[in-house]
Structures are given as C-alpha cells and as structure tokens.
C-alpha cells in the first residue's frame, strides 16, 4: 500500500521516502482542522483541496520546504491573486536627504541579504570527504597526556598509584591558505571563503591561517588579511616552516603579473622546499593554459608522508625518464573538485605512492595577457575592441551584465550561472578584465570584496545592449530569480537592494534589476510585505533613454511586469515554446537545474516519470531537446542514476533516430555531476520543430475522447510494432512499454523511456527503480530475464487497451480471448493482437510478424527492406524453435513463412519468396499429417492458404504447371472447408478459384478456366446475399476475371457486362476499402476500356482509362512492382486508344 502511494507521489513529482510519507500522514492526523499551513494560506474554501494535498503540504517536512513559509507553487500563486515582484539591484545610493522628494527615476529601496550561489556546489560534501586522508594524528613529543590504559595496567600490576603518560596525538599539518587578492580575484572571493570553511571543517589541520597574496607587483608579498589591502605586510618566507608541517595552499586565478614573470615561481619554490604546497586554480581547467598557472599532468611518486613537494619524484607518464626531466620544484595545481582534491590529498598523506597530478608548468612561456586596456578613447571603440578580443560568449555575457549594472561580484556570477552553458566563469573573467568595467568605490578598501561595485560606462552599456534581445534579458532575470528563490536560507549572502516604499536608500528605476523577488521570499529575508500592488513604477521596463523600443512589452505597462501575465505569455513569449508551456509541460521548479551541459532547461514534464525527471530544453542552436535526468535519485544513489542514463543513451544510439528520438548528448560522469541524457524533441508534426512536442498514447486517446479512428489505430499499430521490431533486431528489449513511452507524430511512432531496457540479453539491474504496471507485463515474464516476447505482450496489451479506449488490462473484462467487437478493425488483426497476450511467450507472435499484420491490414505500401530483414531474422529463430517442437511452434512458423514469402515477393526477390512459400506448405503439410482429420482446423486452412500462395509464387517464377498443381490442391481443400463453414472459407475458396482460373487460362484450358471463375462469381454473389454489409471487392475481382475469361472465348458482350459490373462495384466501395483494392479497380477500368474500344466505343474507353489514371494518382501510383505494371499497362492502352482515335479521324 505504502509503496503504491509513494510510487504515485513520485510519478506526480513528489519524491518521498517511506519515512517521510508516514511522517506526513501522522502529522496530517494530528493537525487541527483548518489550521494547517495550506488552509491558512488560501482564502478559498480549502476543504477539498486540503484533503487532497495534506500529505504534500501540511507536513512542512514532507513538503520538502525548508521553511515554514507555505510557499504556493508559482503557477498557483499567479492564478490566486496578484503577486507582486520587486526589483532587486546590486547597488543603491543612500538617500542624502530623507525629506526631499526622491529625484525622478529613483525609487526607495531597502537592503536585503540575497542568497549567493555556492562555488563548490553539490560537490561540497564529497569535497570534504576527499580531504580525509589528511586527517591524521601524530604524537607530539612536546605535549604529554595520561595514558589511561597503561596507567590502569601499571596500577593493577604494582598496586602503586603511578601514572603513565604518552605523547599527545595531535593533528598533523597546519594550513596556510594564501588567497591571491588581486582585483580579478574579487570574482573568486566566495570560492576562497568556501575553501577556508571546507578546510576548517575537515578537522585535518592544527590551525588554518589565511593570508592575502599580492601578485600584481613584481615581488609577491603577503598580508595578514586578504582583500583588505591593509594590515601587516609579510614576506612569503614567513610561511616557510622548517618542521615541514605547514601546508601552503594558494587560491588564485593566475592573472597577476607575478605568476608570469617568475616572481611567484620563486616563492612557490621556496615553499615547496619546506613543506607541501599546492595551488587551487579558480578558473575552469580549459583556461589554465592562458593564465599564469598552466598545468601538465605528470606522474608523481612520493616516498614519505607529507614532506616538501621538492622531494617528489616526477616523471613523464609515457616517455622514459631520461628523455624528459622535470626541472623545477613541483607544485600541483588543483581544480576545486572532489576528484582532483582526493588524488592530491591521498598522495600527500600516503607514506609512498604514485599518482598522476597536474603540476604547474613553469617552462611554458607566458601567453599573452587577457587584459585589454580600453580605458582610453571612445566607449564604442572600446566595446568594439572587446568584441574582437573576446569570445562570442563573453560578449553576450557582457551584454547581460551591462543590462543590470552596476553589479557586485556575486551578481555577476549569478547572471553567468543563469545564462549557463556555453558561458562559464572563464567568460565572466573575460568580461571582468575586458577593460569595459570600472570600479565604483574609490574607498573600496573598507568594503568587503563581495560588496565592491562595478559598472560600465553608459555608452558602452548602450552598445552592448544592442547585442541581446529584451526577451533574452527577461529570461535571464527570471532564471536568476529562480536561483535566488531556491537558495534562500541555504547559501551565503550578499547585500542587494530591493525596491520597497519603506526604504531609506534609493535605487535607479531604469529596470536594471537582476532579479525579481516575490513577497514570500522577501518575508523570509526580513522585509515586511506591503500591499500587493508594487509601489515602485520600475516594473515598466522600457528603456526610453537608451533609445531602444521595447514595443513587445508595452511602454504604458505600469501595472507591473509580473502582473501582466497576459502580456507576458501572449506578446513577450509568443514565439518561445518553452514559456507557453505545451500540454503536459509545466514551469521548472526551483530545485530544478537551469542548465545541463549545453542544454538550457525550459520546462519540466508534468507527468512525472518516477526518478527520471524529463525536461524540455534547448541547446545553443535552438534545437529543442528532451533531457532526462535522475535528479532526486542521483542524490541518493548516484551509481543507479548513472546506470539508467547510460542504458538509455546506449539504446538511443542503437536506434539511430528510428523508432526512438535521436540522441543529442549524454553525460554520465563517474564523479561529480548529475548525469543526464538529451534526445531530440519529438514534435507532433514530423520535422516541423515549431509544432508542439508529440503526444503520447494516453494523450492521443484523450484527444479522441476514447475512440480512435481505425486509420489512426492502424498507423500507430504499424509504427509501434515497427519500432519494437527494430529494437529487437538491434539487441534491445524495451521492457517498460506503457502508454507514456509511446510518442506519436503525424508520421511515425517513437519509443521513449529506455532507461531500464535489456541490452544484448542483459537485463537492467535497476528495473525495480522504475516499476511497471503489470497491465503491460505478463506476471510470469517479470520474474525471469526479459525476452522480445515480453515486449510483444506489452504491445498487444497496449494496443488492445488503446482500441478499447480504457487503460485497463484488456483481459480484465474479456476473460475469454474473444476478439473485441470493433467494426473497423479486421478480425484477423484482432486475433493476432490477442495472441500477443498468450501466457506462453512462445505462442505469441513476433514483433516482425505484427509489423506484417499491420502492414497488411492498413493496405499500405509493402514493408520496406529493413522490415524484411527483421522478418528474416525472425524466421531463423522460429525455424529453430519449430525444429525442436513442431506442435508448439509449427503453426506460428508456417504463418511467419507465409508473411515472409509475401514480403520477399513485394521486394522482387522471387526465388527466396518461392522457397519460403514452399517451406510454409511443407510445414503445414507436416502439421496436418499429424492430425486425424485431413481437414483438421486450423492446419488445413493454413495449408490451403499456403498452397494458394505457393501457386502465385510459382506462377511468378514462370513455373506454370507446378503452379497449377498447387492451386488445384488448394482449391480442393477450400472446397471442402467451404462446405463445412461457408462464412469463414468462402472468401478463401473464391480467391483460390480466381487463381485457378488464371492458371487454367494460362494453360489454354479456357473452358475449365471459365467454369472456375463462374463458380467464384457465384460464391461472391452468395456472400453478398448472406451479408449485405460485405464489401464486395472479391466479387468485383471475380467479375473482372470472368470478363477476361469470356473475352478469351470471344464472348465480348458478356465480358463487357461482367467487367462493367465489376467497375460499378469498385466505384461504390467506401473510400478506405477502395484505397485497399485500388490496383484491382484500375485493372478493371483498363479491361473495360479495352473491351469498349474493341466494340468501337472509343470515347468511353478513353474516359475509363483516364479514370484508371485518376485512381493511380489518388493512391500514389509509385511503389510496388505491380503498381508500376498497372501504370504501364494504362499508359499503353491510352496511347493505343489515342492511336485508334487518330486513325479513325484520318479515315
């Protein structure tokens, strides 16, 4: 019970463990009625909604809200009232005179502590663990403590109270954290602070001292307090600890002059001679080479614990040691990631070991400086120079930063993070050092570095802003807002100013806010909420003074950007599919990532898949993708999460975009980050990316209100079976087919949800993670290894449920496998689908067989070559099975051969087709011979059908006599069968008689041929009498043939009447039927034309041939060989008629 509830909750996006659910339910029972947070927060009568949502919201813990603040979900909040959002700016001017009216363009604001983004991110915990090797204790001979055990032992032995002492075991190393505090490092102040906190918490160091490092002047120097630029100046030698027990850890971005000119080299050499030394590179590793701290991987071998890095033995990982030498004192360069730090910590702490470590590459000549000095001259020119020198991403980032400047470093980082990939912190550094920004605080020394404000000149700003659309800026602000909302209470803070009528400070109201804070968030930040209406007119985000028209937002919109929801959705985002969330998609939740790899997430799937959250995303080119990431699962079980992603990616790769979405990207790193897999978004209209995402089976059924048109059902059936057959041919078993896993476009069907698929007969170890309803999985199948037959079961269950319009187990109300009464669908097809639900997997048809069945039922073009190959594989498999157990598999095998033979024939592969047909006959004969009754069902019927088929194939191969023998035998069987059961076998008999008649005519036995076809016509007429709803196409076919036979005997008048009747029947067929038999229709038209022309009625003949062409055109005259033949024949008749007409005129 509990499992089912948690599963339902997980599927609706609320991941709860059992304990959490139980807690929530316990609380719900304890809460006094009408006093739950939800009840209080909604004014509407909460009786019903409360009952529904109590488990979610009433338990503050269960709701996962880290606060007591009942924060309604964004969507709900917007519909409930008029939530106001207040602009958040990075800087403000304190108002000099409180009584004076605020100058135009300025509004009051109050300071808040806005949450910052963490620099170490989710790796914090593991980073802490990676430092464990350093947590060693060593006896300190200077301090003694009582050794309790030995004292007790001594007293017990001697009886004399005496004490035994031992050296205190103290922590091993002291840490000197040296923070490069040059101006570019204000961006990394938070990193330095995080590293410090991490080191202090690690419990590994005797003490942690922090120094500032000045690398901007020629000789590096230390200060006692970083970023303050005052305090005592120390020489770097102050950190040289002769005992070797001080670990020097430098945090830097390698921009300072001293990193390039050798100044820092000398310093680190000195430190590296005394004790362990390392550098933490703040920049992403791709940029290391362009800074003063480049690195190369070397193989490092140590011989003792700790000790100066100079003692390290460094060799090239590949080349022999005498070829390459490492000439300087090695200094490892670390990225602030758990993996890098763990390697290093292990090497430092182990008594001897070897590892590959990036070492500071001093031999590298200093590459060109990234600083572009653009202070002088025209701002536009400076921007131009920046644009040339900087990367495209940096330029875009600069525009986004300029839009919200003046900024403080945390805001710059937030904007960069919101923009996401492909921008990274390196691009931010390009912007920061690009010469366009200048500090605003002359007295900066007094402020904390994360309070320092930077700005662009007005000219530079307006040039930069022209590079991005206002919509993009809005989107970034929204992304920043989401990040801030998600981080409240869980992150370090930085000061910012939020527009508020009570404020004493003033902010520029020109719309430079980097985020918008809602009242709920403000309350948590200690700002009282005022009336709902924002008092500040800053929400009008027009920037008239910058000469930009922002027509899409509306200059007169003073109500508030957030409030004008209509304007936002209809005008601003009308072309942004992610904002106008399509059906089934909702806005991202605060805990959702904003970016995964190069994909920016736009929406999350409303119908949650358990554990795998699906997002709608977009890459830098605007390609819409669906990204699936096991976010909640990852935090609990990263290994499973990665395995799921890998399996899904493997399957998508194998499917190569057919029958499944095309793989766009995957990330399953062994450490560190959330794994994800991105696939091309499947759109409703084929390749039209502007159409909404394709619906799944469930949605389709809803759209059609439970009844699906036959044509659509056949198309979906064909697409689904083709996709499954393809997967089986490529060694995959989907294993989790369900309505939501089947996406339907207007062209094909794509399967999704491959995360637990069986690859190469190896079942996924995590099937229990994504449980499947047993509606689509035969109970006995779930226990053992999954086979393609399990998928076939699911396909059958799915399609039958789909057809019945109810997502329930189709067996539930049809305990007998009676075919569903569905007028549109051929009973044969229904029977085939029911066979998919056989308990014995071996008795189920193969997926390839299903493809054939659907292809046949939909009368469409013959299956393509790939499908034939799939069936061929199936045939081989079934042949082996049948050899072992003919009674079980024989019938299935014979039918498969039959299908196979037809498919081969449609490909023009006559010999193979013939062989298959012959084998089918043989198998059927063998089966029948085992029966007592020579007409035992269903073997005799199958034998008759296969004989008839064999005769057709023989005829095609030009082996007329054998063909005649076969069809005669078939006719004999059918005659008896028809006698026993007219309803079931009349049609078969009629078709065989047609065939027999053709063969006899071919052998010149015209009268026998006529006799046969006349019997066929009689059968047709009797069928039409018995069943008025019968379609009559077989009668028409027989009549056409009768016409031919009569023509052979030169009984023209009778022939004309027969064919004319056939044409009439064809013409009256309902359009779907007509489409199925269009070739026969065209043929009868042609025949009648010839007959009429012979009778001298040229005009009518020409009209009929043209009608034949019309039929050809309507049904796509290309395709199979038969169609081509008919087309050719029509053409010949027409030219012959035109010739006749011309000659008639000539006379």
């Amino acid at each position, binding site marked *: 019970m509990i499992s089912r509830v948690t599963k339902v909750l997980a599927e609706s996006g609320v991941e709860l463990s059992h304990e959490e659910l139980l*807690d929530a339910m316990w609380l719900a029972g304890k809460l006094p009625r009408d006093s739950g947070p939800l009840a209080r927060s909604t004014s509407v009568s909460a009786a019903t909604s409360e009952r529904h949502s109590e488990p979610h919201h009433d338990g503050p813990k269960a709701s996962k809200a880290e*606060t007591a603040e009942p924060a309604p979900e964004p969507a709900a909040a917007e519909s409930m009232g008029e939530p106001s959002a207040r602009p958040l700016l990075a800087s403000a001017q304190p108002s000099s005179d409180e009584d004076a009216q605020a100058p135009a363009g300025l509004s009051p604001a109050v300071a808040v502590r806005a949450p910052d983004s963490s620099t170490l991110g989710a790796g914090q915990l593991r980073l802490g663990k990676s430092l464990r090797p350093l947590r060693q204790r060593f006896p300190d001979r200077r301090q003694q403590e*009582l050794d309790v055990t030995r004292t007790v032992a001594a*007293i*017990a032995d001697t*009886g004399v*109270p005496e004490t035994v002492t031992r050296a205190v075991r103290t922590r091993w190393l002291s840490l000197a954290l040296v923070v490069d505090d040059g101006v570019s490092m204000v961006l990394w102040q938070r990193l330095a602070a995080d590293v410090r906190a991490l080191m202090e918490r690690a419990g590994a160091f005797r003490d942690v001292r922090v120094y500032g490092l000045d690398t901007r002047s020629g000789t590096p120097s230390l200060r006692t307090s970083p*970023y303050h630029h005052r305090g005592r100046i120390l020489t770097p030698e102050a950190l040289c600890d002769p005992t070797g027990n001080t670990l020097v850890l430098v945090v830097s971005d390698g921009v300072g002059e001293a990193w390039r000119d050798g100044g820092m080299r000398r310093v680190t050499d000195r430190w590296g001679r005394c004790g362990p030394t390392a550098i933490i590179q703040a920049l992403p590793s791709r940029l290391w080479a362009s800074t003063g701290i480049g690195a190369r991987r070397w193989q490092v071998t140590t011989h003792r614990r700790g000790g100066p890095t100079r003692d390290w033995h460094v060799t090239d990982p590949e080349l022999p040691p005498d070829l390459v030498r490492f000439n300087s004192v090695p200094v490892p360069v670390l990225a602030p990631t758990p993996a890098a730090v763990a390697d290093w910590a292990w090497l430092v702490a182990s008594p001897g070991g070897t590892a590959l470590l990036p070492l500071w590459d001093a031999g590298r000549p200093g590459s060109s400086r990234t600083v572009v000095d653009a202070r002088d001259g025209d701002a536009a020119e400076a921007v131009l120079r920046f644009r040339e020198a900087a990367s495209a991403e940096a330029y875009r980032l600069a525009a986004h930063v300029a839009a919200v400047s003046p900024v403080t470093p945390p805001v710059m980082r937030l904007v960069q993070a919101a923009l996401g990939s492909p921008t990274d912190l390196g691009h931010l550094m390009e912007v920061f050092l690009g010469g366009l920004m200048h500090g605003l605080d002359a007295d900066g020394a007094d402020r904390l570095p994360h309070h320092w404000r930077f700005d662009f000149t007005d000219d530079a700003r307006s040039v930069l802003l022209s590079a991005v659309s206002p919509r993009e800026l809005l989107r970034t602000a929204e992304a920043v807002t989401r990040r801030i909302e998600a981080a409240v209470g869980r992150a*370090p803070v930085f000061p910012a100013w939020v527009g508020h009528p009570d404020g004493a400070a003033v902010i520029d109201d020109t719309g430079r806010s980097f985020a918008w804070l809602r009242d709920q968030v403000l309350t948590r930040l200690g700002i009282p909420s005022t009336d709902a209406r924002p008092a500040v007119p800053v929400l009008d985000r027009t920037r008239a003074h910058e000469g930009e028209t922002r027509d899409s937002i509306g200059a007169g919109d003073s109500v508030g950007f957030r409030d004008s929801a209509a304007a936002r959705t209809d005008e601003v985002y009308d072309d942004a599919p992610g904002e106008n969330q399509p059906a089934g998609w909702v806005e991202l939740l605060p805990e959702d990532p904003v970016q995964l790899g190069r994909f920016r997430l736009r929406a999350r799937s409303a119908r949650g898949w358990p554990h795998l959250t699906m997002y709608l995303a977009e890459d830098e080119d605007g390609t819409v993708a669906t990204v699936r990431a096991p976010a909640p699962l990852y935090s609990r079980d990263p290994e499973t999460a990665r395995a799921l992603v890998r399996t899904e990616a493997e399957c998508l790769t194998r499917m190569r975009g057919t029958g499944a979405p095309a793989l766009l990207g995957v990330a399953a790193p062994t450490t560190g980050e959330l794994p994800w897999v991105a696939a091309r978004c499947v759109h409703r209209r084929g390749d039209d990316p502007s159409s909404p995402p394709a619906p799944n089976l469930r949605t389709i059924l809803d759209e059609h209100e439970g009844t699906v048109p036959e044509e659509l059902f056949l198309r979906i059936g064909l697409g689904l079976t083709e996709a499954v057959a393809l997967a089986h041919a490529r060694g995959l078993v989907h294993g989790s087919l369900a309505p939501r896993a089947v996406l339907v476009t207007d062209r094909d069907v794509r399967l999704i949800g491959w995360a637990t698929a069986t690859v190469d007969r190896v079942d996924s170890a995590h099937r229990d993670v994504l449980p499947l309803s047993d509606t689509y999985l035969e109970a006995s199948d779930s226990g053992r290894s999954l086979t393609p037959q399990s998928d076939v079961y699911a396909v059958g269950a799915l399609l039958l449920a789909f057809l019945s319009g109810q997502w329930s187990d189709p067996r539930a109300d049809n305990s007998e496998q009676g075919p569903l009464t569905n007028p549109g669908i051929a009973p044969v097809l229904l029977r085939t689908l029911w066979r998919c639900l056989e308990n014995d997997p071996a008795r189920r048809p193969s997926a390839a067989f299903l493809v054939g069945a659907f292809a046949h039922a939909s009368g469409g073009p013959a299956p393509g070559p790939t499908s034939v190959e799939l069936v061929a594989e199936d045939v081989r498999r079934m042949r082996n099975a049948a050899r072992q157990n003919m009674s079980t598999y024989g019938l299935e095998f014979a039918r498969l051969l039959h299908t196979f033979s037809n498919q081969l024939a449609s490909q023009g592969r006559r010999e193979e087709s013939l062989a298959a047909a012959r084998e089918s006959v043989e198998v059927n004969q063998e089966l029948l011979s085992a029966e007592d009754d020579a007409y035992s069902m269903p073997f005799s019927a199958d034998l008759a059908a296969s004989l008839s088929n064999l005769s057709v194939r023989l005829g095609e191969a030009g082996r007329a006599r054998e063909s005649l023998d076969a069809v005669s035998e078939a006719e004999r069987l059918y005659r008896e069968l028809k006698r026993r059961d007219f309803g079931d076998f009349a049609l078969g008999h009629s078709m065989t008689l047609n065939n027999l008649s053709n063969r006899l005519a071919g052998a010149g036995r015209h009268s026998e041929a006529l006799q046969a076809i006349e019997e066929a016509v009689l059968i047709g007429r009797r069928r039409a009498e018995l069943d008025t709803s019968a379609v009559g196409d077989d009668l028409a076919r027989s009549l056409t043939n009768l016409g031919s036979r009569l023509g052979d005997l030169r009984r023209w008048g009778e022939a004309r009447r027969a064919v004319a009747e056939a044409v009439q029947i064809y013409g009256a067929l309902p359009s779907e039927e007509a489409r199925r038999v269009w070739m026969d229709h065209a043929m009868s038209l042609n025949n009648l034309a010839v007959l009429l022309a012979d009778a001298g009625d040229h005009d009518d003949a020409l009209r009929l041939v043209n009608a034949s062409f019309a039929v050809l055109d309507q049904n796509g005259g290309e395709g199979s060989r038969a169609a081509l033949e008919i087309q050719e024949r029509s053409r010949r008749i027409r030219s012959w008629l035109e010739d006749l007409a011309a000659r008639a005129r000539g006379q």
Partner: protein
Amino acid sequence: MTTSEPPAGTSPVLSSSNGGGDDWWLFRGDGERREVSFPTAPPWRRFDQQETTTGERVPYPRPYLIGPDEVEVVNAALHLRRPLLVTGQPGTGKSSLAHAIAHELALGCVLQWPVNSRSTLQDALYHYDAVGRLREATLQRDADGTEPDIGQYIRLAPLGNALVSRERPRVLLIDELDKGDVDLPNDLLTVFEEGEFVISELTRLPASHAPVHVRTDDLDETVPVTRGRVRCSEFPVVVITSNGEREFPPAFLRRCVRLDLPEPNERRLREIVAAHLGPDALDDTDDLLREFLERRAEGELATDQLLNAVFLRKGGVNLDAASLLQGVLHRLGGAV
C-alpha cells in the same frame, strides 16, 4: 535603572562632553581607586539563577519571539519526535529556540553539546573516569576491602543524558553541527534512529548485577543503567543548529524536520527589543532601528547587536546612531 553615585571628590575628567551620564563611567582611566557598584546587567548577560517554588534552580527565562509559521514547524518536529534542524543567519535565534522550548514545555535545563571539528559521538555520550576509579578502588581496598560502585565514575554527556529513559523528555541542543566532522551527522543518525546506546564499560557486568547508577548533568541525580544499555522511552527534543551553507547527507536531512528562521523584519525587531528591554525601550530608538536595518545586509549584523546598542542608549550613552552602531555593530562577516 542604576543608582550608583559618583564618589565625591573625583575630578570630572571626562564629564558629560560625550553625553554619558555619570553612571556610565565605571572605569575612568585616571588611576584612582573607587568602590563602584556595578550597574544592572542586560537580561541576556545575567548568570544568577532563579529559584522556583519547587526549589528547582532554573535560569531566568529569556524572552523569545517566533512567528506562527515557525511555531508550526517546531510542533511538527515535536509531534513526529524528530530532530529539528534549525538554520538561519547569525543572531536570528537558532540556539535560543532550544531554551525557549525547554522553558515553555517545562523540560528543565537544556542539554548543550557545542560541536567543533574535534567532536566525536563518543564525547557526547558519556565519560568514564578509569583512573579515578582505580585510585579509589586501591585506596578503599586497603582501608576496608570494599570496592566503590562503578557508576560514580561514569558521567553521561549531553547526548547520553538526553537518551536516558524519563517520563518527560529533555531538550538537547546540538549547536553548530556544521562545524563538525563530515561523518558526524551520519554517526548521530544511527543513535537517533536506535534511540539507544551502550556503555561498554558496563556490558561486562554479569546479567545478575543490579542496575548501575550513573551520573548525569545534575550532580544529585543518578540514573539506573542495566547491563550498560541506555535507551530512551520518549525521544528527546533535539534542536540542531547549523549555518545554512553547510550541506548534510540526504539521509540525515530526511530524518530531520528543517526550520529556516527568517530574518526578523522591522516589526519583529521592535517586538524583540520590547520583550528584552521593556516597551519603553522603543521610545527613542527609531534612529537606531532604521540605521540597523539599513546596515544589516551590508554589515552582516546580528539581532543581538541591535539589542546591545539599544541597551547602551538606554543606559544613558547619548551617542548618535551612527557612532553608536560604529562601536557596537561591527561587521560580523570577514572577507574570506
């Protein structure tokens, strides 16, 4: 408030030029010796204890103000018998919450366990004084041949004490868990889930041995422990405080009820001042409050700093808001 008279004959070296009343100048820096009566301490710096009617000595109750939503979460934790993980900015009253709960529910003194990077779970469970026991055992055996009870040498530490089986649970404050070792939360989790621990020194005793009475935080109280096993009957009220920046293992978080204390807004600040210093304390402190609110974000200030400033103002220090705050509201945060 205070009535200390300046002693006669003192030279008014620094009279009222700075605005302070005479009782402000306790230390004058003039080298003269005086008998100064100390002024009343701020309520939050009083260390004498109140005696209740039952003769129990409890600390003076400190006023504590909390919003209804936060109360909701605290109740959820109490109902669920789960630890309450409190986060929030410095000075938002994380630790005081434990005292407030203990006071309001009459759960006695708060058991405090301040965590640092050296803290281990063992430290928080119990201490065993082996040497003391041996020494006294030797002495007593020499005297009369009896052996002192082992229970005297075992003293339960805060966590251990909280897990003693009692009719009413105690309040355990685990302060600044974020300062602790990475593994500490997981170690704690085990004890919280089991609700029991074992004093290994006592497990050696034979099954027939009578319960050992071990010492608790109260000098007069001992509790019986059978075969070394301490198991709570009511799960203690556990309040864990942490800086919100620190991540904890998901398993740990799942088993805690989380409470994030919001920053107090202006109205709440006024209430806090009034509660601590009396309603008239608000009379002429508007400028202080305003200045505090403006500088709070940038200066990373804590609420108790405002209380200090108001207390000083009430004590007669007549500095303007800016200089007073300069003196008292020094920045809490550092650069790195």
